[in-house]
């Protein structure tokens, strides 16, 4: 309720500045698109079907890149958590690569994988892998040894300790790591699509800049925000379901 009111308030403020500023001649109409113009751009692009196509292209890239990275982060996170030498060997390499802003490697990916889909998917996978891997490995490392002891005294084998104790115990941190990774995927897909893409929401936004159409930029940005909030909301709902046992206290 409060959030809805807040959103309505913010939209009203935007409309006031855009329409009011324009009426009073305070704002350059080219620079400050009105809500009406943004909706109009969205309508035009939706009618010719290109909006749906851009959306689909971006979503597929995110899904593939994020999916690959999540699978790798889970597998390696588990390995590192149960095998100390692997952790000691991976740590320094990751510490070296991690402070380098992932976007600095974007042109590298374009050189290596070309301008097609592979470079974008690989780039998203690369970017989202590190925070997810680190979060998952840390979550597994923090599993309370008492829970492992309790299960082993009830007859659990090594496999059962990992599957029935370590994984459920680390699930909250795993879910947080996945959400973080997904947020990052939405963050960087734009950058990847700015640079040499012919479709996708980032491309749409860049087009808005090239053709000096701020309404299209704002529309693309809001759409990405909406997509991000939507998936985040879904992930949170899933989290509440899976982690029901935590919220009841």
């Amino acid at each position: 309720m409060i959030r809805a009111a807040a959103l309505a308030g913010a939209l009203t403020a935007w409309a006031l500045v855009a329409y009011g500023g324009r009426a009073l001649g305070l704002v350059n109409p080219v620079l400050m698109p009105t809500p009406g113009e943004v909706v109009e751009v969205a309508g035009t692009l939706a009618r010719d079907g290109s909006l749906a196509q851009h959306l689909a292209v971006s979503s597929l890239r995110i899904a593939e890149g994020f999916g690959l990275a999540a699978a790798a982060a889970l597998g390696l996170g588990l390995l590192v958590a149960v095998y100390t030498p692997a952790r000691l060997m991976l740590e320094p390499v990751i510490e070296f690569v991690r402070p380098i802003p992932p976007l600095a490697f974007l042109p590298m990916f374009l050189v290596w994988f070309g301008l097609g889909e592979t470079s974008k998917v690989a780039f998203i996978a690369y970017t989202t892998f590190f925070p997810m891997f680190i979060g998952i490995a840390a979550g597994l490392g923090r599993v309370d040894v008492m829970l492992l002891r309790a299960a082993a005294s009830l007859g659990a084998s090594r496999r059962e300790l990992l599957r029935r104790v370590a994984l459920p115990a680390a699930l909250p941190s795993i879910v947080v790591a996945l959400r973080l990774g997904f947020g990052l995927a939405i963050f960087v897909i734009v950058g990847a699509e700015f640079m040499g893409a012919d479709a996708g929401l980032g491309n749409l936004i860049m087009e808005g800049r090239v053709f000096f159409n701020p309404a299209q930029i704002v529309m693309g940005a809001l759409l990405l925000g909406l997509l991000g909030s939507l998936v985040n909301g879904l992930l949170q709902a899933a989290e509440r379901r899976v982690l029901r046992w935590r919220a009841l206290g």
Partner: protein
Amino acid sequence: MTMAGPGGAGGARVQIEGVHKAFGLDGRSTPALIDVSLEVQAAELLCLLGPSGCGKSTLLNIVAGFIPPTRGRVRVDGAPIAGPGPERGVVFQEYALFPWLTVAQNVEFGPRLMGVPAARRREVVARYLDMVGLSEHATKFPVQLSGGMKQRVAIARALANNPSIVLMDEPFGALDAQTREVMQEELSRIQRVEHKTIVFVTHSIREAVYLADRIVVMTSSPGRVKDVFTIKLPEARDRFAAEFTRYESEITRVVKEEVAKVRE
């Protein structure tokens, strides 16, 4: 299913032989236990009593198979132990319930691992939840329970796996004074029905006298066996009986010597 070993009723269930334990890496290790030898008889409730840091929990962890002794060995029903096993149930001070499982699922955890069929599992869960008085809370999650209730679940979980030995590590240590006495009474009542072999670690003399058949008093760090008391009181005990108080003061005297040593 039953797990009675070759020791059978009447023999020594647990034999602790010359156990030493030191912590820390080779160069700078500190001894925690020195030459501890003990036997626990079948259907006996043995209390390990001593000031904090005397190594009683360490000894329990060794018997549970969580940590290896530096020297010496532990045999259960005649066989040397290697790691933890379902024949030794453990109840922890911190409860160690699986927070993502309901009360019933926690109790069912052991039988499920042992491959007990579902119908039989339901009976076992019902029986032990009834025994600890939690039948109405079967579908709750641990976060929804009070400390005392959590520990009842932990006891039911350990017993439902039908272990031949139950190891209890200061199980009531985190509870408030009233709950603690209620839980002691519950355990005593359950033991009169189940006749388990129990090793019970505590630093409370009253608790030990109330529950134990035998009390092993340990020295303060490093831990050794200082004295052993056989408690000849009726199964259902009265904390205000003269005999009870006599045991209490006698053991208090012995324990105080150790506490005083730590102070120095």
